[in-house]
């Protein structure tokens, strides 16, 4: 699991880097809030970020606020580092969008446990996103032929029919129907009928341009 460590103090940063590496995290470091922001908004952004509260220019709280404002589908788990034990400060940190906080100086067991919570959160979130995209795919795909189902093609056709006149381009819609399909089912059974459907779709796809929409 990838983790970002952002602290403007070199010794603290080095300490966190070493400790987190020991615990199996792949560590990226940043020495300012700006740098942390760049890492967190990059393509391969880490799942967990440990952000020092007090950093010049862009502080940890502001980084949290900005990340939350992005409303990402898989937001990083943000651990705010603070040496302020004040309840009010903790509330401010959490309200800004931090997922949790850790106090300096670090306690071995506490830091490890809080990171584990973050790791669990990131793993759970990833699983949720995978499931979500799989469900979306299933909802729009015909299970037999793996092309779009009725629901999906009607959605797309509505879009295409609105776009074609706007762009002044022609749009063709073809309907492929297999006559007397019941006879095939009667003679070869439903399993045989399924194979026929699959082969027909396969051949039709080969004959069509790749960008053509097809639905079962």
């Amino acid at each position: 699991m990838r983790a970002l460590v952002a602290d403007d103090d070199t010794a603290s940063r080095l300490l966190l880097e070493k400790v987190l590496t020991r615990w199996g995290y792949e560590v990226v470091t940043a020495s300012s809030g700006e740098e942390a922001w760049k890492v967190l908004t990059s393509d391969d952004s880490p799942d967990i970020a440990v952000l020092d509260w007090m950093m010049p220019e862009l502080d940890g709280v502001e980084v949290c606020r900005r990340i939350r404002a992005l409303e990402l589908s898989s937001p990083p788990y943000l651990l705010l580092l603070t040496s302020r034990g004040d309840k009010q400060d903790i509330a401010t940190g959490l309200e800004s969008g931090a997922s949790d906080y850790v106090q300096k100086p670090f306690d071995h067991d506490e830091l490890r446990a809080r990171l584990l919570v973050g790791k669990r959160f990131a793993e759970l979130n990833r699983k949720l996103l995978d499931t979500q995209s799989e469900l979306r795919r299933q909802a729009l795909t015909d299970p037999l032929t793996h092309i779009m189902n009725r629901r999906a093609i009607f959605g797309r056709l509505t879009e295409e029919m609105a776009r074609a006149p706007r762009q002044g381009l022609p749009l063709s819609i073809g309907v492929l129907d297999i006559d007397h399909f019941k006879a095939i089912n009667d003679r070869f059974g439903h399993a045989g009928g399924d194979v026929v459907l699959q082969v027909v779709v396969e051949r039709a796809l080969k004959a069509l341009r790749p960008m053509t929409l097809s639905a079962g």
Partner: protein
Amino acid sequence: MLTTANDGAQALQATREKRYDLILMDVQMPIMDGMEATRQIRDSHSGTLNPAVTIVALTAHAMAGDKERCLNMGMDDYLAKPIKAAELQEIISRWLATGAPGQESEPMPEVMAVTEEPAPPVFDEMVLLNLLEGDHESAAEIANQYLGDVNGQVANLREAIQTGDSLLIRERAHLLKGASASVGAQALRYCAADIEKMAATGALTDASRPATLAAETVAELDHQLNLLLALAEENGGLM
């Protein structure tokens, strides 16, 4: 039963919550000293449950007249530090000797010891070793990194104090506090924390006060840095 407190204010609060029979009170303490705490405990309006509690002063002052000063402040007795076991025993038996010894029906006397917390160590190497699970090599590398940065961090803070910019003092004291806390440089950590607090309340930059506080603060900061550097030099590094 024995209770402990680290300053006069804690002691005063404790006497509002429980009836004490005897208080051993350090005279010199931060926040509220023993003299002030005694004055308030004796004041019947302070909310203390037992304003007549026996208070024994603990003092390092060897000067004549100290005993009188303590007694004038309303304390009952006096013990010079370092405290000797026999003297302590004698004081306790003198003031708590009610009823016959060993008498079961007597409730256990409530005693409170009020002394300042011991000074923090210059460098506590267990801080890094605990976090790094005993990896001495990594701990030494981090301690060296800190040692390389601390001069500059202290110099920046010193400059901010001398300039009198309270926001800058807070920022730089905070950085030094965080770095020192991370590696276990406890004395410098608490020194920086005090400076951060003083800057936050405006005490360091108050124009109506003489510049002595700022000068004293810089002297204390330099003193703590020198202790750390001396320790590093003596041991060939902090770890």
